[in-house]
């Protein structure tokens, strides 16, 4: 072969080889410089398995949240904009009784798609990331429902790929200890044909590649230590962010999107910090950052939150160090919308930053009404929804007496003692197992009537005799607190009870007119013991802080210096209610377990709740005193029989209707008896 022919062949061969190097060349015609396209990126975040707007504890619909309403917003955005991408930013599969039902009560099988993902699968998500709550049910469950076979050593890992979301889940900063590789795909590259406009104004199709990478908050290693310790570990998030940005760009990503399940924090950088958004925005090469986890709305022009007012944060335009960023609330209440105007230049697509817009769209209209829920979602998950309602109504035990707080202000303990028993048992077990230095201290408990009629005759705890279900437990323990235990002295206990006794007005024994027993001090701060080991009297004729008399422990006047452990809740122990000495300084156990869950677990073991053992131990009485005039208080109508059933023989009806229009009667207490 002569040289010319050789050269021609070489050039031809090179041309063929080079042509093959260009990924786009055999997919799309090349894009004309000057072509423009508008790309809208949408975010849902922190859906927490609120597929429908429904409160499973109250067993009532609530239109102020729910995936079925944000779906309406997504569809509207897709009708409005030609090119949309939809992402979910994590904390998706945990958060309601429906989630618990599918994960723990009646765990779904491999072939069943999780209801939340089933609903999301109808909406063509482009990608999602993993938030901290994805780990709450453990790695085997997460592996199963995400339709992936995560490479970790744990009991119960699925043996095959199971049904899951029809969109990729990406996570870059959590690695398997088994193979030192990211647990999930760190990123995904999405190729899309955009509807664009060429320089002549003609509508054309133009391809774009979007790289999306996800990050979970590093404190998962603490929050879900029991599932994750030794099995996964966190990378230095900033380092992997840089690494994967470079990798995605090298693979032709025109745009890079961060799905950060976290918010903003301007504190000095720490690899363990929870909210990495501020530092991630500085990584470089990022076009869009989605945020979540903190359940807030960003941008928010009027926010006073320090994190939203950091240098470099534009809380009106939604820019964090120049990066368009959005945080779309939680539970489907809002949709994050970031609109980018793209121009195709010499070196590919670039963003015309002057035209970028960032906003959140709420399912709540300005007039206070809500957008319509998409009915298709409700039909889709109807059986799971109904099964959850049945679950919440399933008996976990039964009670031989009606447990109420109608007369808790005057000595009824029926709805409080069981809570105290559950709390004390729980703390006692923990101390015995983990805090040997306190093993010799007595463990007591206090609780309060959370519902004591402020809202009217139905604003009381009232669990009927008979079956007790989970929603009844919610009635017995209204607030979402966690169990804390504090170490206090006898003097501290007295101060605690004195504060609680502010519930009552000071009674003047000489007054002939009726005096209200109960003041404006909230009933949920009326902490009381309900144990035969502790007894005390409340003298309501005394001014506040001098009312607790005859405070005894095991029949003997309490030693002010003696030490006790008292189970309570995190709010009380951290200063809630302003109780003296309860300010966080004497917490010996800060449990992650909710008081309500501790109560439910206790009932499940106890099974049969009886008044004799769980509802008749009064620790306190009013100090007996004769009054000239009546001492009165308000409670629900037609419940006097419950007072005598509770052993309160000094209560009588004073007036059938108190005239407030709140279905309340006035009762009288005879303090002399």
């Amino acid at each position, binding site marked *: 072969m002569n040289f010319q022919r050789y050269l021609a062949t070489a050039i031809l061969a090179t041309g063929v080889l080079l042509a093959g190097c260009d990924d786009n060349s055999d997919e799309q015609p090349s894009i004309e410089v000057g072509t423009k396209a508008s790309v809208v990126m949408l975010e849902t975040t922190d859906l*927490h398995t609120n597929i429908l707007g429904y409160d499973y504890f109250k067993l009532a619909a609530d239109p*102020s949240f729910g995936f079925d309403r944000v779906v309406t917003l997504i569809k509207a955005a897709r009708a409005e904009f030609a090119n949309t991408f939809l992402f979910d930013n994590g904390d998706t599969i945990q958060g309601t009784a429906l989630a618990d039902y599918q994960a723990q009560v009646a765990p779904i099988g491999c072939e069943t798609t999780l209801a939340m993902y089933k609903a999301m699968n109808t909406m063509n998500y482009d990608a999602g990331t993993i938030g901290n709550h994805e780990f709450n049910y453990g790695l085997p469950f997460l592996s199963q429902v995400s339709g992936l076979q995560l490479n970790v050593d744990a009991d119960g890992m699925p043996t095959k790929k199971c049904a899951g979301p029809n969109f990729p889940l990406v996570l870059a900063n959590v690695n398997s200890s088994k193979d030192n590789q990211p647990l999930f795909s760190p990123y995904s590259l999405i190729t899309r044909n955009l509807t664009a406009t060429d320089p002549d104004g003609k509508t054309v199709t133009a391809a774009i590649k979007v790289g999306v990478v996800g990050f979970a908050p590093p404190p998962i290693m603490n929050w879900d230590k029991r599932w994750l310790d030794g099995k996964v570990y966190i990378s230095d998030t*900033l380092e992997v962010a840089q690494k994967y940005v470079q990798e995605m760009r090298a693979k032709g990503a025109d745009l890079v999107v961060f799905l950060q399940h976290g918010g903003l924090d301007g504190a000095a950088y*720490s690899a363990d910090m929870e909210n990495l958004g501020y530092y991630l925005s500085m990584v470089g090469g990022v076009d869009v950052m989605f945020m979540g986890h903190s359940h807030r709305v960003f941008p928010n022009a009027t926010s006073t939150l320090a994190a939203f007012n950091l240098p470099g944060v534009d809380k009106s335009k939604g820019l964090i160090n120049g990066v368009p960023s959005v945080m779309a609330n939680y539970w489907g209440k809002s949709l994050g919308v970031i609109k980018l105007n793209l121009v195709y230049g010499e070196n590919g697509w670039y963003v015309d930053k002057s035209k970028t817009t960032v906003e959140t769209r709420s399912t709540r209209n300005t007039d206070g009404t809500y957008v319509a829920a998409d009915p298709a979602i409700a039909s889709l998950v109807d059986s799971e929804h109904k099964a959850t309602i049945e679950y919440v109504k399933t008996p976990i035990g039964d009670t031989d007496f009606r447990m109420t707080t109608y007369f808790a202000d005057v000595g009824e303990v029926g709805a409080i003692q069981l809570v105290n028993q559950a709390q004390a048992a729980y703390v006692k077990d923990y101390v015995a197992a983990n805090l040997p230095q306190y093993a010799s201290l007595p463990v007591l408990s206090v609780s309060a009537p959370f519902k004591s009629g402020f809202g009217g005759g139905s604003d009381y705890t009232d669990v009927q005799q008979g079956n007790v279900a989970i929603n009844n437990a919610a009635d017995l323990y209204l607030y979402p607190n966690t169990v804390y235990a504090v170490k206090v002295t006898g003097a501290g206990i007295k101060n605690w009870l004195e504060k609680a006794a502010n519930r009552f007005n000071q009674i003047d024994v000489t007054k002939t007119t009726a005096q209200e027993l109960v003041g404006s001090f909230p009933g949920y701060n009326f902490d009381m013991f309900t144990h035969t080991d502790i007894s005390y009297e409340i003298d309501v004729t005394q001014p506040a802080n001098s009312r607790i008399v005859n405070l005894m422990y095991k029949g003997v006047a309490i030693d002010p210096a003696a030490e006790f452990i008292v189970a309570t809740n*995190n709010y009380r122990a951290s*200063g809630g209610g302003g109780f003296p000495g309860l300010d*966080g300084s004497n917490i010996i156990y800060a449990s992650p377990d909710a008081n309500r869950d501790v109560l439910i677990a206790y009932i499940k073991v106890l099974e049969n709740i009886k008044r004799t053992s769980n509802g008749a131990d009064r620790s306190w009485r009013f100090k007996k005193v004769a009054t000239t005039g009546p001492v009165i208080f308000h409670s629900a109508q037609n419940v006097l029989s419950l007072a005598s059933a509770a052993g309160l023989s000094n209560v009588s009806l004073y007036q059938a209707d108190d005239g407030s229009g709140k279905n309340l009667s006035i009762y009288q207490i005879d303090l002399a008896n």
Partner: protein
Amino acid sequence: MTIRRQYRWLWLPAVLLPALLVAAGFLLGNPTVTETESLRVRAALGQWPAEIRLRSAAWLGNPAALRAEAMNLLASNSPSGIAEGQAKLRQAAGKGDRRAALMLGKLYFHGANGLPRNHALARPWLQQAASEWPAADYYLALIEKNGLADAANPERALAALTRAANAGVPHAQFLLAQAYLEGQGVVRDEAKALQLIHLAAEQEYPHALQFLAQAYARGDHGLPRDERQANLLFALTADANRDSPAFP
């Protein structure tokens, strides 16, 4: 003899290795705060280049590097590791690393990682840390308020609590709010209390969220009675209870 000749050369690595570490430290320069964190994480994962870099910086007395090594050691779960970690933490704090001082103060406050609960020992470390780490003022406030180190000093407690609250520590904002609600050490001021509660609630501090939830449920503290708002706030409280740290 043969053996002695072979051993004769052991002086070389024995001198070279530390010299190399020191040289590496000098050549590479002091790592920045962010770099130190990155090194710490990678060293904890056993990546030896990061270990060497961190070790060389620590050898040269870089307080942040010392503190980073201390953190890894304290997380090691071995008694000797923890003891060494405490020592390095003290070194770092002694060289002026205020974050290390805060860590030491907190360890003594709670009694953790091998250190006994000792508020008198905690206090000087917290005082050192306070100019840079507002959380230290929160702990100092608790010590002074409850007389945990010596006699209670309500004025100093209030000053420290106010500093921490003003610097944005939500735990302090909540306690200061309680003080204004009760008129404890300050003139009773419900509006100021609510302002502090809102600041803490914005940071998802669960007790501030619960306070507001309860207030909206009843229409207390100047807020309108709003059951829906109360329900939403209780739901936020539930999440925050789980995710929020009990202490700053």
